[in-house]
């Protein structure tokens, strides 16, 4: 336990102290390896609970809580940003009220509960997060080299990056809500620091936006804590186990649960909070990769998923399904109009988080299983795609999709990896599609959500295909020299790529050994020891297993993928004599060479032809969609919180 949470903190300070590039890299790699080993050890060991003793950890956390909030106030003052200031104040005053006026006792045993869902999360955080940290070692050097910085800030960057992993581990393990709140704030803080890292005006502005939006979530969190504490009789109510296990008075907990779901939505960048995640794109790419795949936004969906049994069977549940489904739809539509690769990825993340939250709202065992599958596969694929985006950026020094035209010739290896990453986001037999498929199978309980799923998954096809098409657009030419990638780039890339296939093909065993238990933990309100691997809700021989994974022919479909794409790629040879120029109505210039993109335009003037993608800025642009999409999203959030109030 200490390794998962405290090691990153210690390692972080060590990184801050070490000024040498190689020594620092070694510390990062060593930390990563220990974290990965530790998470695998946890996974083998199975669920457990833990309460740290010997030291007044509660006091330390309280002090640090105030430290973070006062730092927010400082940011608010120094940037003259009133929103940050307001929402820092709305957190610090209730917190002070809670601790000094109410004199709350916040001891909860056990302080940490590690169930199967937490195990899945920690595996994702430790493995994928670590790979991204390794990627960042080299990336940040190239980044600073490109910016011609005088003074290196790589140590600071890596410090926050590694610290983030520790905070995330703490977040998924914590059972004490106050501690959960603390880790929540630490992730918000890390996020702010990482987005603002480049210290440009835009970076600081966007970081401040991320801060205040997440601070509204923090405010809702602290309100939920105070409400629970005062209405449910003290510290008993601050245990996550009690909230979801049905130990508290049922109807009274809906309001705090709704508030916590709101908090989850802010962190998961659900509409109308999508702008902070988009703004976060100004940060160096490893930050985006980390925020999108294994940390930060996953904390949001984790919280909602964790709370699922607490709102099961209520209107709140249906509303949450709608909030998520609407975001899935809206963000997918917006992704089509984006011309920047990273923004497409960002909208796709927001969309998929919406899908996961919608699954939590649909709240059947099948939907919960889909949500967990999506969390896993999304983390792998999106982590890979962001790292690809970073690699591409350092090859062409641009993030624009139009500049990526013909990347297949310039960097065939990167293109191949990116192409697999893109295909793995939306096509069978890859894991993301399996998750989406199960989600749609489960969605009929909330038919409107099912309709949104259908529309959104179609829009998803459009924006991914469009992008991949730009990468592949090449002139007739043979011999694509394969580029060299630094080890710090290629190890994470290949690991994640192999991860897509290993986890995708091994979906059956993984489902049986992990996901059944994790789904049971979520659905049953988390009685981790009473309900283990074989319980009543879901067993490995239950309906879902037979009906869903039984039908999904994993091996045959991967085999078909190989026959359809890989074999032609490897086996078909092309001779120079077989190469022809593209059809241009006989108006080709360039003297018969096939690799020409010049033609005789009007008055026989030799002109280069240019091709571009469709972006539909007029119909699907942000300006056009934001006003009404945000209005609907805000309405849905109000209804969501209203659902918590009305029951009382």
């Amino acid at each position, binding site marked *: 336990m200490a390794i998962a949470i405290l090691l990153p903190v210690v390692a972080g300070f060590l990184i801050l102290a070490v000024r040498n590039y190689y020594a620092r890299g070694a510390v990062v790699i060593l930390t990563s390896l220990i974290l990965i080993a530790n998470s695998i050890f946890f996974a083998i060991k199975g669920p457990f609970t833990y309460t740290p003793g010997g030291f007044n950890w509660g006091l330390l956390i309280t002090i640090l809580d105030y430290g973070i909030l006062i730092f927010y106030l400082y940011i608010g003052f120094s940037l003259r940003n009133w929103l940050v200031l307001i929402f820092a104040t709305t957190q610090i005053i209730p917190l002070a009220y809670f601790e000094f006026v109410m004199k709350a006792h916040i001891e909860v045993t056990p302080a940490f509960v590690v169930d199967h869902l937490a195990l899945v999360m920690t595996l994702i955080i430790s493995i994928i997060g670590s790979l991204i940290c390794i990627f960042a070692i080299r990336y940040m050097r190239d980044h600073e080299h490109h910016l011609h910085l005088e003074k290196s800030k790589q140590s600071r960057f890596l410090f926050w990056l590694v610290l983030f992993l520790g905070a995330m581990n703490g977040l998924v393990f914590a059972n004490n809500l106050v501690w959960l709140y603390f880790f929540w704030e630490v992730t918000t803080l890390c996020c702010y620091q990482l987005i603002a890292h480049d210290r440009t005006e835009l970076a600081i502005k966007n970081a401040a936006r991320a801060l205040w939006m997440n601070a509204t979530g923090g405010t809702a969190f602290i309100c939920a804590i105070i409400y629970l504490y005062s209405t449910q009789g003290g510290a008993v109510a601050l245990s996550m186990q009690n909230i979801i296990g049905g130990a508290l008075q049922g109807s009274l907990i809906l309001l705090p649960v709704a508030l916590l779901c709101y908090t989850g939505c802010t962190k998961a960048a659900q509409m109308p909070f999508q702008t902070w995640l988009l703004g976060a794109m100004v940060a160096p790419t490893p930050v985006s990769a980390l925020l999108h795949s294994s940390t930060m936004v996953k904390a949001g969906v984790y919280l909602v998923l964790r709370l699922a049994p607490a709102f099961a069977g209520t209107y709140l549940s249906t509303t949450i399904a709608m909030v998520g489904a609407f975001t899935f739809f809206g963000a997918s539509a917006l992704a089509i109009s984006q011309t920047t690769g990273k923004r497409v990825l960002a909208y796709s993340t927001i969309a998929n988080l919406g899908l996961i939250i919608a699954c939590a709202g649909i709240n059947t065992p099948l939907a919960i299983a889909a949500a967990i599958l999506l969390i896993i596969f999304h983390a792998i694929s999106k982590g890979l795609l962001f790292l690809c985006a970073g690699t591409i950026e350092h090859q062409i020094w641009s993030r624009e999709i139009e500049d990526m035209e*013909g990347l*297949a010739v310039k960097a065939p290896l990167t293109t191949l990896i990116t192409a697999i990453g893109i295909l793995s986001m939306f*096509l*069978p037999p890859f894991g993301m*599609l399996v998750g989406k*498929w199960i989600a*749609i*199978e489960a*969605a*009929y*309980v909330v*038919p409107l959500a*099912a*309709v949104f799923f*259908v*529309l959104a*998954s*179609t*829009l998803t*096809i*459009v924006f991914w*295909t*469009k992008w*991949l*098409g*730009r990468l*592949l*657009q*090449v*002139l*007739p030419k043979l011999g694509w020299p394969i580029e060299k990638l630094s080890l710090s780039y290629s190890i994470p890339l290949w690991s994640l790529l192999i991860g897509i296939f290993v986890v995708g093909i091994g979906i059956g065993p993984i489902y049986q050994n992990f996901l059944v238990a994790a789904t049971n933990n979520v659905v049953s309100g988390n009685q981790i020891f009473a309900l283990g691997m074989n319980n009543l809700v879901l067993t490995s021989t239950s309906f879902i297993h037979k*009906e869903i994974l039984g*039908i*999904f022919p994993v091996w045959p*479909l991967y085999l*078909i993928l190989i*026959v*359809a*794409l890989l*074999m*032609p*790629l490897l086996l*078909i040879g*092309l001779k120079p004599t*077989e*190469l*022809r*120029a*593209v*059809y*241009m109505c006989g108006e080709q210039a360039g003297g018969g060479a*096939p690799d020409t*993109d010049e033609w005789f335009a009007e008055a026989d003037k030799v002109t280069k*032809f240019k*091709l571009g*993608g*469709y972006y539909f800025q007029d119909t699907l642009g942000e300006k056009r969609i934001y006003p009404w999409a945000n209005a609907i999203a805000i309405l849905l959030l109000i209804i969501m919180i209203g659902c918590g109030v009305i029951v009382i």
Partner: protein
Amino acid sequence: MMIKQFLLVFVALVGAPIVGGLLFGIDRRITARLQGRYGPPIVQPFYDFFKLLGKEHIAVSKMQFVWIYGYLVFMITSLIFLVLKSDFLLLVFLLGFAAVSLVLGGFSTKSPYAHFGANRELLQILAYEPVLLLVAIGIYAQNGSFLISEIFKQDKPLLFTLWPLFLAVLYVLTIKMRKSPFDIATSHHGHQEIVKGVTTEYSGPYFALFHLAEWYEIILLLGIISLFWANPLWVGILIALAAFILELLIDNITARMTAGWMVRLSWSVGLILGIANIAYIYFTKGVS
């Protein structure tokens, strides 16, 4: 059981292109008659196919071959899913892979005509994919399962309750068959301003593969239509054939429209039909 399934798959793999090719022959003949021509023999598509196979092997990019294989193989896979009466939703996703492969085949060369065609093909996916997915949900609403085998167990044909979705599927069939008013990405007739659209850069044996995939596709689509009257199946097949003839008529009496119009029409009329259909079943039947 296993042997029977293998046999079924084998029959489908061999039979589908033969029947599909013949259907295309009939298409050309009927279209010719409607236009006051005599038309080619019904087996003309097979002549064309073998002639293309013998042609010279030329290319503009290696990637286009990869994607045309993807198109063919995933089309066949979808057909196998239909024959084995597997999950309908998964079938639609696999069909989506085939369609995406064709689009990427068009994109993977810097050719203006192929590029136009690919963009339009992508818009076609945008137009028909939600309708097909809604059909899957409609089937689930009616039967409580996405399995095609479950459709065959029901006595009451799907058409009785899912007729609005059936209308929407007819519309999808027009798009998928590349018939007017939706012969937008590529066309069987030479009246296109974008040459051969998405297939412009394919020639010889690889163009033959495209035709082969189209033959599988038509059988798959007509198979999906016949699911609307699965018991007894021959009624469904007759309905599918009638739908096929209807498409030919529509093709000959309409003019090609723009891609934007197609998407707007599909996302309004098609989706309203589908959503209203599912909503009706949901409110009358509830969650089964």
